[in-house]
């Protein structure tokens, strides 16, 4: 470990932050059962301590993303455990642990960029498999696979795969091929095709809220490709791409189902029992919560559908106040922005970070602005905060990718013709 003091202080202050929140729950919570409270404390603080020891086995140069991840995950456990009464939300607690494990998976998957770039065809195959699963098992009006004891949203798992696909294609920009009159990079065509297919599939499943997230991941990769050698994107190409996006959005709105168009143009205060119900209740809750909130488990929003996922920001605002809710958002933004402090050292990892950052930011914006009636309500989750196993797992994987980008492996690259190169390197001056 290169910075033992940073590690110890980070551990200590994450623990203090969670302890502070638990104190608030105990003194401000509604009819707090001591037994339930002790279980919640043991779960949260126990996970903190276990994670510190587990992380000691990983020889990383930076642990900031890991500690921020732990901070926000246990914050979400405390939030979710206080909605409608103080008791440990075991389901969310387990998904948080899954998210932490998933972050380790993501970390190992993309740490060595040369290895993952050599396996990029498998990434495309995985995306194809996930799309096949959606077509076969979810149906045209659903996005879930019901396994009885749990439900899975397969489209969520495409997000990290698409981020990796964008990043692996970045180094292929030099390999142009002549096709008719055009110089074509096949990877760009494939990537665009994959993104378009995923978006169409989401349309078919009526999971329209996820489309902006996929589009944002692709756009981040597209924009970074401009900076890559030999990309040669002209201003005309950029303007053309912008116009194409606007036309696609216009066609999308025109062809959107009735219920979507109703949401786009609804005045929530004229329809407080119909399409505007969740948003109007969310806005009332945010206003009632004020800066400091009503206190954990003292709100009413937990009686509204999707209070723990789609309008979770409003539920937190109501019970914990706008200050704590905004600080939660800041922590997630800091996770996404951590590569700005510790920049990645390769184009692959740079693109990876941009894709993850785009996905997190768009998801948060859709959820928060949707809850506040600034944009139409989409039903997208906030990463790490909203309840939902698939979302938590994929968010964990993407956070692990950010850690990997800041702790890269520079593995030995196999040289195709080592003997020829030796001949060339003959003239070495003194």
């Amino acid at each position: 470990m290169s910075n033992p003091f940073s590690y110890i202080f980070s551990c200590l202050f994450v623990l203090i932050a969670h302890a502070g929140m638990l104190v608030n729950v105990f003194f401000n919570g509604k009819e707090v059962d001591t037994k339930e409270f002790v279980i919640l404390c043991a779960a949260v603080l126990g996970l903190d301590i276990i994670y510190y020891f587990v992380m000691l086995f990983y020889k990383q140069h930076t642990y900031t993303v890991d500690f921020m991840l732990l901070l926000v995950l246990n914050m979400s456990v405390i939030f979710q455990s206080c909605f409608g009464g103080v008791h440990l939300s075991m389901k969310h607690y387990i998904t948080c642990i899954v998210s932490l494990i998933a972050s380790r998976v993501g970390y190992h998957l993309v740490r060595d960029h040369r290895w993952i770039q050599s396996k990029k065809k498998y990434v495309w195959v995985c995306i194809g498999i996930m799309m096949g699963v959606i077509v076969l098992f979810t149906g045209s009006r659903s996005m879930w696979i019901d396994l009885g004891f749990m439900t899975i949203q397969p489209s969520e798992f495409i997000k990290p795969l698409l981020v990796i696909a964008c990043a692996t294609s970045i180094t292929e920009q030099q390999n142009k091929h002549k096709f008719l009159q055009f110089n074509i990079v096949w990877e760009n065509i494939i990537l665009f095709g994959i993104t378009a297919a995923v978006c169409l599939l989401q349309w078919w499943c009526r999971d329209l809220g996820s489309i902006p997230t996929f589009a944002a991941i692709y756009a981040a990769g597209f924009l970074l490709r401009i900076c890559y050698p030999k990309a040669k994107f002209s201003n005309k190409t950029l303007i053309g791409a912008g116009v194409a996006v606007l036309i696609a959005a216009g066609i999308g709105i025109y062809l959107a189902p009735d219920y979507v168009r109703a949401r786009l143009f609804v005045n929530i205060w004229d329809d407080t029992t119909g399409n505007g119900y969740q948003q109007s209740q969310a806005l009332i809750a945010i206003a009632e919560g004020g800066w400091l909130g009503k206190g954990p488990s003292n709100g009413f929003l937990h009686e509204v559908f999707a209070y723990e996922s789609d309008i979770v920001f409003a539920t937190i605002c109501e019970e914990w106040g706008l200050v704590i809710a905004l600080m939660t958002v800041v922590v997630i933004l800091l996770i996404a922005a951590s590569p700005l402090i510790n920049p990645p050292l390769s184009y692959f990892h740079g693109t990876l970070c941009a894709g993850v950052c785009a996905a997190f930011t768009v998801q948060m914006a859709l959820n928060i602005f949707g809850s506040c009636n600034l944009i139409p309500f989409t039903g997208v989750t906030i990463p790490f905060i909203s309840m939902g196993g698939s979302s938590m797992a994929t968010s964990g994987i993407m956070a692990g990718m950010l850690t990997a980008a800041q702790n890269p492996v520079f593995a030995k690259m196999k040289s195709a013709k080592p003997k020829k190169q030796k001949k060339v390197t003959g003239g070495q001056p003194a």
Partner: protein
Amino acid sequence: MYDNGLIFCAVTAAALDLCILILIIASYREKSSSRKRWKSFSSDMELFENGRSYYLGCDEVLIGRHGSADIRLHDMSVSRYHAIMTITDGVWTITDIGSKSGIYVNGRPVKQKKLHENDIITLGSRRLVFRKRRDKKK
């Protein structure tokens, strides 16, 4: 709520604020150790030309005339995307990425070549020396 609640909310917010601050400070401290690691890995090399040095700060460094190049050489004899330098196990390699005037290392034309300290790289009419990074304060 607002009698004791205000105090406990303030305590919670302060604890979170402090934690976020500590994590940001820790991140900056870790950044310096990452730089040290990079220095030891990359042999801390630079390209030097007429009193100006270009630090090789990542594992793929693009050299060219284009604004997006990591090392930008304002010279019409240099292609917009001229060469790329990569590092593997502490050894830097320069690769021609389709330039018009080519790359010369120590006067010999090359498409790809492993670099050694004090190699002279010629890109168009520009001559760069590949050398150990020197402390400017000295």
